[in-house]
């Protein structure tokens, strides 16, 4: 959503577009996680006046919902689902690799859904033992992934690469791996399965 509007209005509309129900103003504030409730309330009132958001009384409070009959609603919903679209495109791209990774995971702010204009797209990839680290095919795949991900989002993509043989020594010693396992979105292979196997060895 930040692609089209870097304002609070964009965050509010994105949150409402992703939700299937109506929300209180405080729920919207918590959901977008970075604004004062007063600011969100003013934005919601303005969006209601503009007709893209509808409100209804519920007891003593007011509930807000995206007006899905509005002509702009499908485009707002599309922009709100950009993260899912990115993940889908990344999975398609990785599925076409001639040399499959043991694991390819998107982690960091893009995986959490809070990436901004200046955020990097962070990938963690595990190269099989059978593939030489300098293998042209392997290196080209990674370079192409970085180039495509950057072109699709405008955010610089960076790949953190490990070899299969390193994995045993990394578990519990590599904070970035722990973070990727906790918050990451699997794009290809299964890093989580790989680490489980290493743990049981």
């Amino acid at each position, binding site marked *: 959503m930040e692609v089209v509007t870097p304002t609070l209005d964009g965050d509010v509309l994105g949150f409402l577009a992703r939700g299937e129900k109506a929300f209180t103003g405080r729920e919207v504030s918590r959901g977008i996680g970075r604004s004062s409730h007063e600011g969100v309330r003013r934005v919601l009132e303005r969006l209601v006046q503009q007709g893209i958001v509808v409100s209804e009384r519920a007891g003593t409070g007011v509930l807000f919902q995206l007006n899905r009959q509005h002509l702009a609603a499908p485009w707002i919903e599309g922009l709100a689902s950009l993260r899912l679209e990115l993940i889908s495109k990344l999975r398609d791209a990785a599925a076409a690799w001639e040399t499959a990774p043991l694991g390819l995971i998107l982690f960091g702010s893009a995986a959490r859904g809070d990436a901004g204009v200046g955020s990097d797209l962070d990938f963690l990839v595990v190269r099989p033992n059978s593939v030489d*680290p*300098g293998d*042209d095919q392997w*290196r*080209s795949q*990674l*370079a192409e992934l*970085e*180039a495509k991900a*950057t072109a699709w989002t405008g955010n*610089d*993509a*960076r*790949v*953190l*690469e490990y070899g299969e043989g*390193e994995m045993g*020594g*990394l578990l519990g*010693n*590599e*904070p*970035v791996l722990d973070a990727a396992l906790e918050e990451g979105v699997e794009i290809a292979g299964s890093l989580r399965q790989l680490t489980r196997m290493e743990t049981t060895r």
Partner: protein
Amino acid sequence: MQFLDAALDIRDLASEESDVGDAFVTLCAHAGIAAADAVCCIELREHARGESHQEAVALLRRVRPDGRALGNSLNTLLGLKTRAGYSAIPVNAEMRKRSKLAAERLVTAARDRLP
């Protein structure tokens, strides 16, 4: 060239090469970035600005006739720099060797283009 010299000095002065692996790889990457900028300035009359790795690699790939290979070397260095910067585990001997080769390739390409 100064970055590459500094990388080699640090490696040679260390009691254990592996102790300074991350610094060595990072300096090799800086040598590669500086050499790539020089090649682009000489051949294309422009160089990459800002922080974008991909923009720098894409620009270098436009150089003829060896831009594609040089772009791959720069990409290798940037990947290793990411590894050295993000990971708590020091880079290994293979990574140090690969970063030196890639940096030397880029520095040589820049040097060969100097009048």
